[in-house]
């Protein structure tokens, strides 16, 4: 079986999002089929400027074919067009113009897909919202599998995507919530699709004691891992945590790991460590009481899965449907939608080691049943078998 993975960017330097998701899946599926990645030369996700050399190369044993972006994105122009289509009555042509502006505008990639349709059994497209997915799936709907990685943002309601979601041969969703949202938008229940997500591997050799000693953390702490950004709910987390500290007599500290785009509040119990190597990240997570996950928008929170894989409970933002759904299904975390709920849930988790242990155990079980690589690979293979039977 030959599979092509089609994604907007691809490279070892890209360490997050749908691109990393795609790379991991491609690397794992290599065991079962011939895999080729079709992508652009872009590295920068704002302008899509050509960065990587054109043509074929090998990345971690995977054959990668890159196509040029013929017109980089002009962020200002793109912003103007996006505002126009989100705020005004418009035609499908306007949405197509928006899609072209959003990019990565690489017609050669689409031509290649069309010309080499017979070389592959399936084309797996990652990220519904970019040029490559819309035109690639439109070119070969019967061979397309879409991994939408969709969040509940404004553009998903464009009519363009309602049509797109009815085209592919099959879907691979990240979560039940994503599946429900897309099905509600496009009424595509008749298209086969499974909730799969992505696996993760926990490295050996991490040590919470070394972490505490290395970074001089005293006493109990909870941890946030990820980009420190307003979109990720960090401003609200800081506000809630500081108010909680004012109202409750607790020594607990909030440790932050990740690149920050915000000014971290000057508070003795908020400790910012910056971007850390993987070993330190996992050591920090292992030594913490729980993971704080305040994000408003997630299609699948990989760090939440990592926390559960390590037996740690999670306190999540309930306004993010995916996080709330994961907590409810796993019984491995509590969630909050306002300060009152944050305070009570945080207090309850802090005050009960037994509850934390029980939720941690639930998390481990949830992770093992759904997100180990054996399970993920098995789901992809089952989907291919199902599609082959239907053919």
């Amino acid at each position, binding site marked *: 079986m030959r599979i092509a993975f089609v994604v907007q960017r691809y490279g070892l330097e890209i360490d997050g999002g749908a691109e990393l998701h795609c790379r991991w899946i491609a690397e794992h599926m290599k065991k079962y089929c011939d895999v080729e990645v079709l992508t652009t030369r872009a590295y920068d996700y704002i302008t899509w400027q050509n960065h990587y050399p054109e043509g074929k190369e090998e990345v971690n044993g995977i054959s990668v074919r890159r196509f040029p972006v013929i017109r980089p994105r002009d962020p200002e122009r793109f912003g103007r067009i996006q505002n126009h289509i989100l705020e005004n009555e418009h035609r499908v042509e306007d949405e197509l113009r928006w899609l072209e502006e959003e990019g990565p505008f690489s017609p050669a990639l689409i031509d290649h897909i069309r010309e080499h349709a017979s070389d592959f059994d399936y084309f797996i497209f990652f990220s519904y919202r970019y040029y490559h997915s819309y035109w690639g799936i439109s070119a070969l709907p019967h061979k397309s599998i879409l991994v939408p990685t969709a969040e509940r943002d404004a553009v998903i309601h464009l009519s363009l995507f309602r049509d797109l979601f009815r085209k592919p041969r099959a879907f691979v969703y990240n979560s039940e919530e994503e599946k429900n949202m897309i099905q509600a938008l496009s009424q595509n229940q008749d298209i086969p699709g499974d909730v799969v997500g992505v696996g993760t591997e926990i490295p050996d050799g991490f040590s919470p004691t070394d972490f505490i000693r290395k970074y001089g953390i005293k006493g109990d702490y909870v941890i946030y891992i990820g980009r420190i950004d*307003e979109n990720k709910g960090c*401003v609200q987390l800081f506000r809630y945590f500081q108010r909680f500290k004012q109202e409750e007599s607790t020594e607990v500290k909030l440790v932050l790991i990740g690149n920050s785009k915000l000014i971290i509040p000057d508070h003795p119990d908020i400790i910012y460590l910056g971007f850390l190597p993987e070993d330190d990240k996992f050591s920090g997570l292992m030594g913490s009481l729980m993971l704080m996950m305040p994000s408003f928008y997630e299609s699948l929170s990989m760090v939440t899965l990592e926390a559960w894989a390590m037996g740690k409970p999670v306190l999540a933002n309930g306004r993010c449907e995916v996080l709330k759904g994961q907590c409810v299904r796993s019984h491995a975390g509590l969630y909050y939608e306002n300060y009152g709920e944050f305070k009570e849930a945080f207090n*309850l988790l802090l005050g009960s*080691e*037994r509850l934390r242990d029980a939720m941690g155990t639930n998390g481990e079980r949830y992770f093992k049943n759904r997100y180990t690589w054996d399970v993920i690979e098995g789901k992809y293979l089952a989907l291919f078998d199902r599609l082959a039977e239907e053919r």
Partner: protein
Amino acid sequence: MGDKNGNEKKEFAIDYDNIDVEDIMGQIRKKIASQPEVSEPGDPLPVEPPSASAPLPHPPGSPSGGKAKIKSILLKIFKPVSPVIKFLVLPVHQEVMDTAQNLHATNERIDSVERRMDGNFNQILQKLGEVDRATIARLEELNRIREYTQLLYNISHNMVVELTKLKIEHENLKLKARIMEKDFEFLGKREKALEGKVFG
């Protein structure tokens, strides 16, 4: 943090062998919902409302029996001199006693009406309390929406700032590239001139 044996505050009923997150969140919400009521001072004490069908006490009737009849006939016949007869026939004391009884009966009627009003008043208070709670819930919802709107506003603002910065940087880089092109051109010319001097 916490107690290893799980002897934490027993505010929530949790089955640790079979954790149910929705049930715990339900208990948390219930607790939060109950908090404003606890903190509200001076809830009216429960008053047994008088039954609506309970009759009001009757005013004391006039003196009853034959004595009253004779009295009224005599008063009619001798109407012109009735004040004198009244003064002579009826003892002032009796008159005072009757008046006092009348006043007492009137007081009782007023008290009864007041008790009924009190019952209604408590009902009104109760209704007001419900409206108050609904308003608080609505306000919380509005606050949530406001926070959300604020967040969206901030995100848009940050995006605009980032885009502007990128645009400026882009212009700077373009400018630098132009300067470097000119430098390069100048160096090329200089190279040619030097070559001319050296080899010419």
